[in-house]
């Protein structure tokens, strides 16, 4: 760093290491960034998996029908993964997502059942949705308080929330699934499509896009990264760390609530027993998407891709006729490899 050169501006093809001055990314810099970027590897993995199955089963895999079915199945998971991304970025974890989904769908459907059942209109649907999202947000807020104010580790706070939310759902329903949400929800949202794309897909993709933009371009997103990266730095810079954490867990709860409505529409009723492993699926997707469990790193694009990897793997293995238990094994291995890769890249970057 002798400061003899003065390449203060960039020449994109400048391949010699910069010695002084300010330098914008360019040329080799972009290559390095691409190499170390989380999403690059995730996209690569997804493309490789898809290519493999396309070659093995050219006529069945990767057809439009197959893809949209996959995306529909994944839509509640994707919405929960969006919230989970924020939580994991703050170095937290939310194990309660699947149970909160069930709780919200139960509470909403309870309202629907008492307000015309299948004959309810759009207004009923809207009110029920608000109720579902609000109950999810409320549940998340409580968990956020436990994590930030009571200093209970997120793993435990949300594990408690996971059990309790499911318990409450069973108490409300007596263990019997509720059915028949209003027509507009079950038929239009659940089965209908707009411009050839299922409403479920549209909703989950729009949610992902909106919160992806919030994550990347607003103060809320930046504080999530900052708190996960170094909460003390945030605190000293005047960031209200506790309050932000509460908001993040509330958001995760609210999105789980929304996922509950999506699930209600998709399944034409509640699915009490269907979501016990949603939390693990969602966390797997987020981590595959490049988010670091230590906080501070990850992106919505990564999550979006990551959440589809287990689904693609599932569908693909089914199509080529492998024993379904292999799916679990494969996903487990992929997950561990992804985290190892994350550590490896982290070390690489820290040494650079």
């Amino acid at each position, binding site marked *: *760093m002798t*400061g003899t050169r003065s390449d203060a501006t960039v020449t994109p093809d400048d391949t010699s290491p*910069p010695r*002084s*001055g*300010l*330098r*914008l*990314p360019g040329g080799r*810099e972009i290559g390095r960034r691409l190499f170390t970027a989380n999403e690059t590897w995730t996209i690569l993995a997804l493309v490789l998996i898809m290519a493999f199955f396309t070659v093995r089963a050219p006529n069945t895999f990767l057809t439009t029908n197959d893809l949209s079915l996959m995306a529909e199945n994944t839509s509640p998971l994707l919405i929960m993964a969006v919230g989970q991304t924020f939580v994991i970025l703050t170095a937290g974890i939310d194990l309660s997502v699947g149970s909160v989904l069930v709780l919200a769908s139960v509470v909403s459907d309870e309202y629907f059942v008492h307000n015309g059942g299948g004959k309810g209109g759009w207004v009923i649907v809207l009110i029920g949705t608000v109720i579902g999202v609000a109950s999810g947000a409320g549940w998340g807020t409580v968990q956020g308080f436990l994590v930030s104010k009571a200093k209970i580790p997120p793993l435990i706070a949300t594990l408690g929330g996971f059990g309790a939310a499911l318990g409450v759902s069973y108490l409300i329903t007596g263990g019997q699934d509720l059915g028949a949400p209003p027509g507009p929800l079950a038929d239009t949202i659940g089965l209908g499509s707009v411009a050839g794309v299922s409403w479920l897909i549209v909703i989950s993709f729009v949610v992902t896009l909106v919160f992806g933009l919030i994550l990347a*371009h*607003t*103060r*809320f997103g*930046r504080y999530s*990264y*900052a708190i*996960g*990266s*170094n909460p*003390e*730095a*945030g*605190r*000293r*810079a*005047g*960031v209200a760390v506790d309050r932000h954490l509460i908001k993040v867990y509330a958001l995760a709860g609210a999105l789980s609530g929304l996922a509950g409505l999506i699930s209600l529409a998709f399944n034409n009723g509640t699915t009490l027993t269907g979501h016990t492993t949603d939390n693990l699926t969602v966390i797997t997707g987020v981590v595959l998407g490049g988010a670091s469990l230590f*906080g*501070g*790193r990850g992106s919505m694009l990564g999550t979006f891709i990551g959440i589809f990897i287990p689904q693609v793997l599932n569908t693909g293995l089914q199509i080529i006729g492998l024993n379904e238990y292999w799916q679990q094994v494969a996903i487990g291995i992929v997950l561990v490899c992804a985290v190892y890769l994350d550590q490896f890249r982290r070390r690489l*970057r*820290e040494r*650079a």
Partner: protein
Amino acid sequence: MPEESTPLLEARDLVKRYGQVQALDEANFTAGEGEVTALIGDNGAGKSTLVKSLAGALRPDSGQILISGRPVTMSSPLDARAAGIETVYQDLALAPDLDAAANLHLGREIYWFRPLRILNKPEMRRRAVTAFADLGVELRDVSAPVASLSGGQRQSVAVARAVAYASKIIFMDEPTAALGVLQRERVLDNIRRVRDRGIAVVLISHNMPEVLSVADRVEVLRMGRRVARFRAADATVEQLVGAMTGALTTEEATVRSGNGDSAGENGNGDGKDAA
């Protein structure tokens, strides 16, 4: 000494106890605008506790903090910040996953559309580039994560952040400890430059030659209280070390005998040392 009558920052009889440990024992401290005050002392003398109290990161059990002669209560770093006080902590307090521009603006984001808190990243990057250039800091990419920077560059980011926002006082806790020779010189240059803007710089350091080269005044803390004050120009390393270890005391008596801070203790201390 009319300019000493109302120093920019003054601490009177600060006491801070941690259980059995008396970190600050009626400690006094003074820093004037446009001068570099070095705060020295052996490990455990109470330097960090004193600085944290003055920067609002810690609440002393008793005592008074005055800015321009007016008593202030600083119950959080935000209060200190509002008073124009910035601190460069020893651990730098940076978010390693955020880039330099984001760290520089952490807690003070610039918005493109304020109602929705949408960040104006290009503007923040531009200002970061300017801030680093002002300091003569070498940073090849303000949008690289701070984790990928060298120790010296991280240090520079923390210093640049403090300099960019401090209007009155900057505390620097061992700002050169992790740096190489060249970078160390640059930080010292920065300190002088900041001082020349009329800001009070309080420098905590273990490096005596460095203290004597950059500081205008030196205050020595020992076992939780100020035991000596020097004009850097008149002091020698031996004197500083003597004061730190207790071999030399210039103001114990004055302070012990009540709150006579303005009663010429400066003259007392300086006179003795100069003699």
